[in-house]
């Protein structure tokens, strides 16, 4: 049964993991996302659905526990925040290389280093460009509301198993910590299927199943890479998600993702009131990036302003997408600072309209 509740982002996401029929969560506490494991421990999903919840000794261990469970064909999820996500990068590369499905949540805080626990979007590059070693990609979903962080958990598991690939939910401290009304989807059954690629115990008269990312021969490793690249092209074709507001008559474009897009939307409304014809494009998937959406709009635009809580990361992908067809500038606050709609509007006027 669908259910309306007022929930904190992190707790809603944890509830969504149980309801999505996850088999296992492995994690290590870090602010601003510790409520995820705390909620799970309090809810005791082992009783509710049989889902395993385990506090690991580190993020390194947690992602490798995810590898083990995912290799058994189970729905495994982990969550962390920026420093912990850095520790998971080796594991993510192995998971991508071994083609295992899993969901990883990053409730981003500001860096570099220990940084601050305040919200940030400075892990964009790490999430969409690989992060770990080797040529691999994760689908990256960027929720802007508590509702989306719930819905994306279910979507992430579906995509993870569709492509046997790690999926990242790139959230931030604002969405993780704020409370909003949220509609929870119905409890989904846990998986009963046995996948032929999963280690479930060798079947008589069948080859044993091996989960590995190792190929000693370059020729074989190149084949693996080609197969992965073909998969990524499929993902780019099929899985792009974005929202656009008031783009039909737009002469200018704001673009932003996640919590920052909500603030930018307010700036857009203020600009419209002043008679500035500006729209907003909000990518919901950061990889695959909505390249065509930008490309199709570029011809009608006098300029694009990307608004990010970082020093300028997504702006590079926007520039690649429009490929010089129109001016692209970046406005950002970072280090845990959140831009105000007034600042954003001002940046549009200075950097794009007046610039």
């Amino acid at each position, binding site marked *: 049964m669908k259910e309306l509740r007022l929930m904190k982002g992190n707790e809603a996401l944890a509830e969504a993991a149980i309801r999505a029929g996850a088999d296992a969560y492995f994690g290590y506490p870090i602010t601003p996302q510790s409520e995820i494991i705390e909620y799970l421990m309090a809810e005791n999903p082992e009783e509710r659905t049989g889902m*395993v919840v385990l506090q690991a000794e580190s993020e*390194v261990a947690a992602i490798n526990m995810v590898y083990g469970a995912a290799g058994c064909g189970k729905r495994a999820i982990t969550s962390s925040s920026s420093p912990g996500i850095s520790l998971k990068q*080796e594991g993510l590369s192995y998971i991508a290389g*071994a083609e295992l499905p899993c969901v990883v949540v990053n409730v981003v805080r500001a860096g570099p280093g220990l940084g601050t626990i305040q919200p940030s979007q400075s892990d964009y590059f790490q999430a969409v460009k690989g992060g770990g070693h080797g040529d691999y990609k994760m689908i990256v979903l960027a929720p802007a509301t508590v509702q989306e962080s719930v819905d994306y958990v279910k979507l992430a598991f579906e995509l993870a198993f569709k492509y046997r690939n790690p999926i990242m939910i790139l959230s931030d401290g604002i969405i993780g910590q704020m409370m909003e009304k949220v509609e929870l989807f119905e409890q989904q059954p846990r998986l009963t299927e046995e996948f032929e690629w999963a280690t479930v115990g*060798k079947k008589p008269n069948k080859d044993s199943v091996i989960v*590995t990312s190792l190929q000693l021969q370059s020729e074989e490793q190149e084949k693996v890479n080609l197969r992965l690249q073909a998969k990524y092209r499929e993902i780019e074709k099929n899985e792009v998600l974005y929202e656009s507001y008031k783009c039909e008559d737009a002469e200018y474009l704001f673009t932003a993702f996640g919590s920052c897009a909500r603030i930018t939307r307010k700036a857009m409304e203020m600009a419209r009131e002043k008679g500035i014809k500006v729209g907003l494009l909000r990518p919901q998937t950061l990889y695959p990036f909505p390249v065509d959406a930008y490309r199709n709009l570029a011809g009608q635009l006098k300029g694009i302003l990307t608004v990010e809580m970082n020093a300028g990361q997504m702006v590079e992908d926007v520039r690649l997408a429009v490929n010089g067809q129109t001016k692209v500038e970046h406005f950002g606050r970072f280090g845990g600072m959140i831009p105000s709609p007034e600042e954003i509007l001002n940046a549009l006027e200075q950097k794009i309209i007046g610039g």
Partner: protein
Amino acid sequence: MSENLITPENLVYKKTKSMTDRILHYCPGCGHGTAHRMLAEAIDELGIQGETIGVAPVGCSVLAYYYFDVDMQEAAHGRAPAVATGIKRVFPEKYVFTYQGDGDLAAIGTAETIHACNRGENILVVFINNGIYGMTGGQMAPTTLEGMKSSTSPRGRDVKTMGSPLKITEMIAQLPGTYFVTRQAVHTPANVRKTKRALKKALEYQKLNKGTCFVEIVANCPSGWKMTPVQSNKWMEENMFPFYPLGDIKVPEK
């Protein structure tokens, strides 16, 4: 006459079902091959080939999944106990083992080893202690003996600057989470038999859900030690065994 000899009663040796026909890539005389064989025989004798999931490490035995004919996962360097934890937690009914070298288990993977044992994960950890990094060409391991030469301790391990050899097996035996901890070898027929008994017991114990079973096998690395196989076994007896004495370290209370 010869026809009469080939009967089941006369059979003294047969192929191990839980091993594949692949040719082992290990150096001549290396302990890994025998250790594999004993684990596979233990799996066969318990009839659990279809219920066993193994985890291979990064090290010379990275390709263990080519040789064990059971479902296997290959873990990142040092992370096998975490991977095994993930497997065992979603499949508590299966038999789960890791097979790890000393660098994998006692250096880069120390945290995963200690915490899996401390949680008492119901898995079998097989620990091949050859006192050296075989795969990467004979560098110093956490278990390299004092004064022992390696490519990164060319004048011998100086404990003042490089630390002392780590008796990780004794360390984890202290943890309430471990149920059975033993140290064995595979360089003589008698030791081979003892090792197999230990591995078999350790797998059987998994059904009891009483905690981690940990079987160290002190092994030779003729290539890394720069010795012939025969010399390496002798050197192991004279140098490794006094520091890493063979025998049970923790046995289940009766």
